[in-house]
């Protein structure tokens, strides 16, 4: 079972999206004024959408050590501070979501297995998945998904550290359905994609 730490900056309803199940034991790390969590004993660090990137910047060395120990980071938010090793998100929102389409890139771990990418493009006639900005990926990292203008939207980085980084351009993902839409098909596909990420994290845990 994956031992996951989820960062919480006190958003209402956040706990609903990451509830322990037979695959993952989620523990919450609440950000306080003296936030300095112990990451020892965790396999996976999850940074949900809407997180506190001031607090994360302050513990960037600890996160780097966590990754160098072969662990996994999921970041589903726009990190406007430079705490993610090797990769940087840019809050360029000059492109409108209404014009954005998503395309599969390098998917060596079959993360899109069973996922219909069209569900991410449309839901109720508007954008189905709300990525924002884009990622400047580390050299050698995989661009798993890109958009209309070839901007990296999802990046998988196994080169910068000994660990695994799975980063979205602020596109929300969680361990439940329906976090961005109440459209049934989108719910299923986003949930399936997250499930595939967990499968990869489990393999990483077993072979770390």
């Amino acid at each position: 079972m994956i031992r996951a730490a989820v960062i919480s900056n006190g958003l209402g309803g956040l706990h609903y999206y990451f509830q322990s199940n037979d695959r993952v034991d989620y523990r919450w790390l609440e950000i306080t004024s003296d936030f300095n969590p112990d990451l020892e004993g965790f396999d996976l660090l999850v940074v949900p959408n809407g997180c506190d990137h001031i607090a994360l910047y302050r513990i960037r060395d600890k996160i780097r050590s966590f990754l160098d120990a072969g662990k996994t980071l999921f970041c589903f938010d726009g990190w406007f501070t430079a705490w993610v090793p090797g990769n940087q998100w840019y809050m360029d929102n000059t492109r409108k979501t209404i014009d954005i389409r998503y395309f599969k890139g390098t998917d060596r771990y079959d993360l899109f297995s069973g996922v219909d990418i069209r569900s991410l493009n449309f839901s109720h006639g508007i954008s189905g998945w709300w990525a924002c900005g884009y990622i400047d990926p580390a050299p050698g990292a995989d661009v798993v998904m890109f958009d209309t203008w070839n901007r990296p939207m999802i990046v998988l980085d196994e080169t910068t550290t000994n660990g695994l980084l799975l980063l979205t351009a602020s596109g929300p993902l969680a361990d439940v359905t329906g976090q961005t839409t109440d459209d049934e098909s989108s719910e299923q596909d986003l949930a399936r994609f997250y499930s595939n990420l967990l499968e990869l994290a489990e393999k990483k845990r077993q072979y770390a």
Partner: protein
Amino acid sequence: MHKIGLVFNGVWSHYAFATAPKYADIYRLIYIHELTDETVDGLEALVVPFQSNQTELGRRRSVIYNLLAHGKKVFAEGDSTADWLDAVWEDRPVNNYWWVTDPHNPPVSETDFDHPVYNGLSKRHSCWHTHGAYVSIPDQAAVIQRKPDGDIITWETRQYGGVLMATTLDPIVEHGVQQITHLDHYVDSLTHWLCGIRPEGRFEVPKERYGIRV
């Protein structure tokens, strides 16, 4: 001299909004973990944006009510808890696609356009989507916006000294996200009401601010 404090939860849209040239001289980011009577001293108003740290707001509620007791204004958007507002907020599904599927039926059906924030706004500019609703509000509060089913979206009260206004709209966060293109109207009206200054021009985030080094 900054007139308005924006409670900052380390969220990128908060940062994008308050540091953009259009608003940077008016709004000052106040990190939630540094929200004290001292850090809000001298401000005309305080804004609590959507995606705020509800736990920490509960711990620091005295800062908000001390500011109100001094006759200042507080604007709260999005969700809240009864730990810091004398109101009951409940979650609801977000309908952000009504303008495509049912454009003549926006989530808000009643608006008091005599209120200074809403005066001069069109219906389209006064509602885009809502994050939940209030089912109970302070005993002396007045309702400013409602949904067709009667749920309360926006309310205001003067019972704490200054003016406390709360809404389940999210103008600050969405303006920072920059995907809803008409929000200059609402936010500029709100800013004027909060501090007496009406910003001009269009909200933009300069390219050099796309990623920062703290």
